[in-house]
């Protein structure tokens, strides 16, 4: 096995063993650092095409290049003119290319385009000394390119999911009503901040249905109209409509108050459960 083949295998092995408990944003940083070490580069970085007027340097070594903003259009033209294939510059053109600001002091460079959604990137590696990019080297780079694309796609998807989850959690926690969702799978449930307070749970977010059922039972036991609530519940579970609105739960302590409770089935392709909404009644 040639040394370039073993470097490609090493990259795949090491990135496969990346600790998934770490924050996802560090996965690409880890992978690009690994590239730097495997290829002994003098400059290694990612350029992400953020929008029509922004190509931003990320995960750079040397680090002072991080956050540098470049115009994306000339870089896109360069990639286009090379058919979006990896560009191997054994000798870097002296002028007239889109990356001249970054490659002023270098002899050789490669540019690896990574087409992913929602944003595309390139990985740039450069060397101060002239390099020879033979077939084995190029095969190694192309193997690594496939793995890099997987890593970038996975990172972007995870970051997207985290962002969506954070956004919906923030919205749900801001709703003043107590929201309790119990999944029919028996393994998952969710409460917002007001519900966590109402049910005296340790905190909002994911909760086991068993814990939620127990907490709701305790809440019901504190009501002053428990018999009425029980009868309404029986009607709910035997009715075809399978939902209740304007269901009153009354409490005498710590202060006299009542909640307008709604209980609705939640049905979609992926989710089947029940949503409880407790709205504090005014006056």
């Amino acid at each position, binding site marked *: 096995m040639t040394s370039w083949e073993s470097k490609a295998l090493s990259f795949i092995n090491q990135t496969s063993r990346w600790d998934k408990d770490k924050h996802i944003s560090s996965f690409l940083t880890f992978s690009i650092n690994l590239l730097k070490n495997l290829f002994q580069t003098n400059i290694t970085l990612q350029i992400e095409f953020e*929008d029509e*007027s*922004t190509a931003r340097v990320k995960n750079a070594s040397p680090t*002072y290049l991080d956050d*540098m*903003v470049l115009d994306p259009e000339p870089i896109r033209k360069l990639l286009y003119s090379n058919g979006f294939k990896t560009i191997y510059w054994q000798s870097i053109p002296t002028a007239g290319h889109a990356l001249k*600001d970054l490659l002023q002091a270098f002899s050789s460079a490669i540019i690896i385009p990574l087409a992913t959604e929602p944003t595309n990137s390139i990985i740039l590696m450069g060397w101060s000394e002239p390099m020879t990019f033979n077939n084995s080297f190029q095969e190694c780079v192309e193997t690594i390119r496939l793995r890099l694309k997987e890593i970038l796609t996975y990172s972007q998807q995870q970051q997207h999911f985290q962002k969506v989850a954070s956004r919906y959690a923030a919205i749900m926690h801001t709703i003043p009503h107590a929201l309790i969702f119990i999944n029919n799978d028996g393994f998952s449930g969710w409460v917002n901040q007001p519900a966590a307070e109402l049910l005296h749970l340790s905190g909002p977010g994911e909760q086991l249905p068993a814990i939620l059922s127990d907490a709701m039972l305790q809440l019901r036991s504190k009501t002053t109209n428990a018999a009425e609530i029980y009868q309404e519940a029986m009607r709910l579970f035997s009715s075809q409509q399978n939902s209740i609105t304007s269901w009153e739960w009354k409490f005498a302590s710590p202060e006299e108050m009542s909640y307008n409770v709604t209980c609705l089935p939640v049905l979609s392709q992926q989710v089947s459960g029940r949503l409880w909404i407790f709205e504090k009644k005014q006056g």
Partner: protein
Amino acid sequence: MMDIFQKHNIHIVGNLESPKTLIFGHGFGLDQTCFQYIIPAFASDFKIVLYDNVGGGMSDINAFSFHRYATIDGYVTDLTELIAALNLKDIIYVGHSVSGMIGLLASLRHPGIFERLVMIGSSPRYLDDPSLDYIGGFDQPALNGFYDAMESNFHAWAAGFATMAMNQPGRPELSAAFANSLQAIRADIAVAVARSIFQLDHRHVLKNVNIPVLILQTADDIAVPAAVSDYLESNIPYSTRVKVYTTGHFPQISAPEEVISGMQSFL
């Protein structure tokens, strides 16, 4: 590609035959007209380039990108593109407030093109950093409150901020003019740009600056306490600090003669 003159509302004035170029970069909430009292003093000896940062003044609003200007690096790239497009060399760059740092970063990106740098009320970091005993003038809760106030009622915030930043109690027309200038910015853009400015930290590059730098500091500047200009002077190798005897963040407006005098002795 967008015309760079239109994008930045570029004006070239002064002595167009002069080999020396003075570029003026304005700060947050202002535009190139803030240097109007300074320019005549240099018009016979220098080619003078004036421009508006994207998002401010008469720049092309269509060029604004929340990604590009999420950090001030977008403005640094704008300045380097402007310099390349106009084929400028031997530049003396005069940057007010954030533009002082924009000029400094551009000079590092393109060594040999900048000859001197004048920083008026500039800061490499506005946030305090207790771990390094650095005083920037703000802590994060204060800045968060600042952004919240901008987001909840931008026009009211602008009026209040203009008075504090101008700090010219005897000349209310100056703060009123600055308030008008701030209020002319689209509120969402103003908040985004304020965040990119007030969260910046470029202390680590100061030691790399190898051109002469003049630091102008006024008394009682809400945005830049004296400790910051001390820090700049201590960390930029060839720097000189001059105190301008006026209050507030805008000496080029409130005390132009003093700024001219400081610049003339430096140039």
